[in-house]
């Protein structure tokens, strides 16, 4: 099996995997970062979203072979101690029910707010539309993204 060097959360990590292995499974099964979740495997639910060079992407769709030389950030690396404004907002609003989709939601929201720190309600809704929450905590997700934007503005 080929060896790939991935830059994850600021550290170089080597993985021995077949070239078609999705980043999602390299993270979960080889590197031991299980915060990134498997939901659908076809890029429809957003549970596996991570940042690649600052953009939120579905890690179930991208093979490891394409990830060398890119800056990958997972939920574990979003902040050192869970204090990223989006994480803080998520805690304050108490968003999760089952909690499974939340890492993906947070990664989508944080990448979105990096690009648009002062979004309208409709922009928040559009940005988060790709992430499914089966518990349907959408009211709180929307509220937490708006709160995170406020925190970032301070």
């Amino acid at each position, binding site marked *: 099996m080929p060896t790939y060097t991935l830059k994850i959360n600021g550290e170089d990590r080597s993985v021995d995997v077949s070239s078609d292995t999705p980043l999602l499974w390299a993270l979960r099964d080889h590197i031991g970062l*299980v915060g990134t979740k498997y939901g659908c*495997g076809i890029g429809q639910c957003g*549970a596996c979203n991570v940042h690649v060079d600052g953009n939120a992407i579905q890690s179930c769709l991208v093979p490891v072979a394409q990830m060398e030389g890119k800056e990958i950030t997972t939920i574990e690396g979003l902040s050192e101690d869970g204090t990223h404004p989006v994480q803080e907002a998520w805690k304050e609003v108490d968003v999760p029910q*089952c909690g499974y989709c*939340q890492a993906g939601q947070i990664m989508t929201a944080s990448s979105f707010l990096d690009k648009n720190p002062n979004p309208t309600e409709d922009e928040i809704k559009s940005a988060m*539309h790709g992430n499914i929450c*089966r518990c349907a905590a959408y009211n709180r997700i929307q509220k937490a993204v708006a709160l995170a934007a406020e925190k970032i503005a301070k």
Partner: protein
Amino acid sequence: MSTTISNSFSRRAFLRTSSLAGGGMLIGFNLFTACKNEAKMPVDIASLNFNDFNAFIKIADNGMVTIYSPNPEIGQGVKTSMPMIIAEELDVPWDEVHVEQGILSTKDYTRQVAGGSQSIRHGWDALRQTGATAKQMLINAAAAKWGVDASECTASGGVITNAKGETLGYGDVVKEAAILEIPDEVALKDPKDYTIIGTDAGNVDIEKIVTGKPLFGLDYKTEGMVIASVLRPPSFGKKLESFDDSSVRKMEGVIDVIRFGDFKGGGDKIAVLANTTWQAMKAKEALSAEWSDGTPMESTSNHDKLLTDLLDGTSFNTLRKDGDVEKAFRNADQVVERTYGSPFLPHNCMEPMNFYADVSANKIHLVGPIQTPERTAARVAELLERNSEEVHLEMTRMGGGFGRRLYGDFVMEAAEISHLAKKPVKVVYSREDDMSAGIYRPAIKYRIKAALKDGKISGYHLKEASINSNMYGLIPNFFPAGALENYQVDVAKYDSNITTGAWRAPYTNFLSFAEQSFFDEIAETLEIDPVQMRLDMLQKVKGTTDERIQYSAERMEDVINLAVEKSGYGNPKDGVYQGFCAYYCHNTHVAEVADVLIENNEPVVKKVIVAVDCGIVVNPLGALNQIEGGVVDGVGHAMYGNFTFKDGAPEMNNYDRYRLIRMKEAPKVETHFVKNTLSPTGLGEPTLPPAGAAVSIAMKKATGNRMYRQPFVENMVEKEIIG
């Protein structure tokens, strides 16, 4: 004012205490039953076996309190709200309380199940009394130490104070308290003195959730564990004829390929074992198998016909019959009959089904997300012909339940594969596996017929035709039962190969839509206000002596009036179309008003106003989350949920073809609680059933189209929207 309560079963019998070897006091208690005489308290935390007790509280000698929470957490928040109730009566600061999930080791764990929104309702008395008893024992120990009467001492915030103002922390007296006699009676707090119950407590796992810590079954891992991906029959009813695994065995990471399913080395499933999840999934996809048709393959079009035939036929069971509906129909001024249809629905928990099993010579170790640990552990023991004492089942946090994780089919699979492979194995479903090997909400049709006379409903006959099973328990006694002189509920079912089971708010999730839409149409026919029609009907229920009627006319009036007041029902703003629904299920009374607008020539559900009577609200923050989720889930599945079969196989198996509600479609949910001090009832389910009904009635006003089938989105394309 506090109340002194002794239980119907003696306190002595449902809780016990002991000293811990390493220091501290341990309280073991049972939520719904007495302890067995031979029940023994463990002396260290490692041997909490939950054999004789539902749950334990440890009070350490530094005063820290750890609750080994009994109930599985599926996102409904009981891991937070149940310990809140104990902490309230024990009188300790909430931030000094830690909660750990109990580990199941035997089959005797009473109601260790998350389902039916019953966790809080059933636990309310026992949890309060356990907390209050522990507090009294600590006070008694401190009083003895001071040489004063216990009645001169008070306790609050984990500190005991005597008349002189001297204080002792709980931790200072745990050693003495642990060996005291358990008091026969203890005082419970007056709800107005609550400092924890009724306050907002966040999810206990929130820090771990937002930082991506391993919590879920899919995150669980042990040394030497392999992943199993399972090829199951592609259609319900097909049998495995043969398979060729020669090329699959050569694939990277593949360890073994095992036929299983009957616990005898045969069966209709094939497990592909590999080192990693991706390798296992890929190899399973590459496996080729031949299947035979055992029975005719079912499809949605023949289900549709079969259910209609059942409704047209005579093979019904009568679940409730009051008066004489036939006579009412003969004497009616007018008869209205409508038929409502719903599809199968998959649960679609975001965390696909998975379970870990390590079946070895003297122990069966099971780990993962399951709503029914005790039943499942017993079934594994039975199927592997092992002693139930050997089964150790550990629960993880669950990435959703919705009823799917009541069923242990995936645990059985993991146990059988581990048994055959002689290895620790984790079975992992792909999304496609999860959606196509489901235990679905059955497709159902209701036909409702009402006799109208003198401007009122004089007879009501509801018929249910369902796949595999029918409504059960008290459902036939829900409103309008008790409100009508002549009332009858009949059910019939068709036995299918397709596996079906409980789905969030079983039966009522669709029955509510059918009945409440029907009432709206009746009110329209009679040219009366639909809300007033409900209120008038409820009058007959007041003071009923019929014990089957468990909903309360008064509590129903309260939620109806509150929903009307808060939504401005009857006087909507320009361009807003409102649909009203009131419903009782899972012991909770709910009324909802949906606001629908027309945007870009399409009806849009903007807002749902909810009035809820669930008694005392233990954790408002968690309660609101359940209510909001229940409503949006109810709207989502009524609008979009469609799951069809062809040749025995589901026609959709992932989110590209199966539509779940998303952010832009989610209405804003505005919740109002009826304030009272009645015992709390659950919230995981009751707000879901009314949502679809409220939306469909608002849609009717907005578009002129009345919905008789779910999902609505399929109906909406058929007719021109009038706006």
